[in-house]
């Protein structure tokens, strides 16, 4: 039991923190909750306060060797244990090993006659007894405001609550106190005036029929913390918070390259392909060949024996493998030997956070060298443009920090501005490949060009893209006024120029090399 000497000593002591063991929360708080101090956890009903608090204790006991006490005012120990059976907290085991104690305090709802002076020493005695019986370092009080409904003398209550927090600080236990969120205050009875070290607020709202949960560190005295709202999920490991990104742009620029899997495309990218660790966007209308480009890259990566994660939002795995087989791309063997890992999900099945969290989880689990998301525009169903952009920023940032190459496909609506994706993440993208459908003389052909590619002298030509039985071919641009000539027009042109008819779709006489522009 250590006492806090921060006030008595003049020297600056770093704030000590206790890791929560809750994924993402330790990053948001830069190390956990203040050790030996109380933290208020506020939120409306059903926000997840009890869950977070219990997880704090369970992880503390299991991972950090800190036993805990859970003081419940609203649920009996049996009810609590029942509520948490589907999660991996192992509460019964911890209780049996005396690492966790659940204490239920029942407050008489009916008016108890108050016949004179009293104090809440009974509460203190119970708490002290509970803490001593397991040697607790962590305490949860859920919820302190229940005291207000049981006792009517507010002056005594406030005095005793102050005494309680002093007692907890002296006991050196890291405490979470839950509070019901009031309309204007963080807690219904203004608890935050007593606890000023750390305040965390949970929120649960339903937007467009999709429910989202958010967490925000409103206050954390003495430390730099993320002040944004961070989405979180409740799943069988308990709560997971979407991790924050680095506070600065500190990524080192990668210098190694990797082939796109399409030799003709590599040729448009200085002959070397993409930069490793960069972010590539392939945008185009429906059916323009985005998935094919993505699949070529996936195969290339897997073929080298590197792990690739392919997140598909539009087609099932078997659809993709079947479609790719028709252009000569065999993905099946790589799926079988697990170098290529597919994750297919309906975008509308879950909220945006759930998808992104799942992607994060898969990344943690698989440590892929390459991540493909096809398409990212489907995530628009999950939230507003601002939210998507910010979520994507975090994901991209996370990937760059890990030097993981990312390829996203993006669907544009027909007739729209090709060079603008709905999500507006263009500034985060290093290489942007645009696919266009071009209608000329009664045919629709696919055109492809590199809109930008940072750090390399990429081609600026619009070339024709063909899906052949042997994969994607990109034909070099021909001379002429038009960027892309339809096959028949090229045919005619060749006829005009050479006076001969060449069979099939052969490349014409050596084209004048296209202009090459260096774009930053």
């Amino acid at each position, binding site marked *: 039991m250590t006492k806090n000497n921060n006030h008595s000593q003049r020297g600056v002591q770093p704030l000590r923190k206790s890791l929560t063991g809750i994924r993402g929360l330790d990053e948001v708080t830069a190390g956990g909750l203040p050790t030996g101090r109380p933290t208020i956890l506020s939120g409306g009903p059903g926000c997840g306060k009890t869950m977070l608090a219990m997880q704090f204790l369970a992880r503390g006991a299991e991972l950090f060797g800190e036993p805990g006490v859970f003081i419940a005012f609203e649920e009996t120990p049996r009810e609590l244990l029942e509520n948490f059976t589907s999660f991996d907290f192992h509460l019964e085991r911890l209780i049996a090993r005396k690492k966790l104690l659940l204490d239920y305090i029942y407050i008489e709802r009916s008016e*108890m*006659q108050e016949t004179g002076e*009293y104090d809440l020493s*009974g509460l203190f*005695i119970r708490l002290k007894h509970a803490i001593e019986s397991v040697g607790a370092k962590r305490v949860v009080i859920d919820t302190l405001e229940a005291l207000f409904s049981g006792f009517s003398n507010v002056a005594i209550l406030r005095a005793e609550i102050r005494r309680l927090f002093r007692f907890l600080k002296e006991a050196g236990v890291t405490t979470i106190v839950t509070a019901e969120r009031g309309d204007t205050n963080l807690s219904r009875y203004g608890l935050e005036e007593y606890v000023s070290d750390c305040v965390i607020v949970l929120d649960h709202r339903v937007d467009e029929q999709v429910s989202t949960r958010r967490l925000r560190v409103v206050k954390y005295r003495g430390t730099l913390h993320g002040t944004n709202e961070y989405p979180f999920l409740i799943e069988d490991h308990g709560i997971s918070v979407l991790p924050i990104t680095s506070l600065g742009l500190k990524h080192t620029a990668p210098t190694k390259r990797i082939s796109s899997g399409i030799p003709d495309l590599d040729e448009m990218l200085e002959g070397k392909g993409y930069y490793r660790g960069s972010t590539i966007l392939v945008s185009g209308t429906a059916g323009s060949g985005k998935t094919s480009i993505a699949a070529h890259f996936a195969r290339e990566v897997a073929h080298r024996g590197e792990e690739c994660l392919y997140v598909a939002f539009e087609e099932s795995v078997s659809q993709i493998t079947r479609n790719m087989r028709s252009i000569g791309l065999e993905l099946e063997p790589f799926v079988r030997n697990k170098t290529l890992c597919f994750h297919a999900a309906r975008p509308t099945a879950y909220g945006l956070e759930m998808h992104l969290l799942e992607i994060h989880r898969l990344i943690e689990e698989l440590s892929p060298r390459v991540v493909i998301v096809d398409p990212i525009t489907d995530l628009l169903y999950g939230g507003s443009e601002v939210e998507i952009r910010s979520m994507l920023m975090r994901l991209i940032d996370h990937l760059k920090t890990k030097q993981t190459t990312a390829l996203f496909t993006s669907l544009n609506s027909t007739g729209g501005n090709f060079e603008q994706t709905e999500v507006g993440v263009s500034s985060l993208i290093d290489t942007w490949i645009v696919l266009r459908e071009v209608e000329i003389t009664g045919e629709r052909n696919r055109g492809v060009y590199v809109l930008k590619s940072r750090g390399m002298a990429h081609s600026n030509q619009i070339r024709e893209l063909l899906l052949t039985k042997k994969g994607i071919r990109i034909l070099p641009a021909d001379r002429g006024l038009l960027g892309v000539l339809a096959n028949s027009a090229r045919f005619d042109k060749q006829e005009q120029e050479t006076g001969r008819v060449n069979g099939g779709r052969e490349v014409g006489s050596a084209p004048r090399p296209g202009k090459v522009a260096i774009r930053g």
Partner: protein
Amino acid sequence: MKARTSKRTADRNKAAGGRDGIFRLRLYVAGQTPKSLTAIRNLQQICEAHIPHFTIEVVDLLERPQLAAQDQILAVPTLVRKLPPPIRKIIGDLSDTDRVLVGLDLRPAATNGQGAA
């Protein structure tokens, strides 16, 4: 009742209106504080004045902290009427006699009348 208790009995020859059965009262205190001593004194007086048959048991939570959890005691002092049923709880140092009697169901809440409810 399990566990040894420190009993104090009082003069039972008061003739205030009859109640059926003995009153078993338990007073929870936390150490020998002024509040505890006041409560004990007040309790003694009220019982002698209004209750013909009673037993008082004083439990010091500092000596037996596990009883705080077992009997769900938060406020101190707390007086519990164990018999006759139903169980009644009163908190405070028992200075307000009227409230004590109401709490023990010896007097109806609204009126100032004497005698059993």
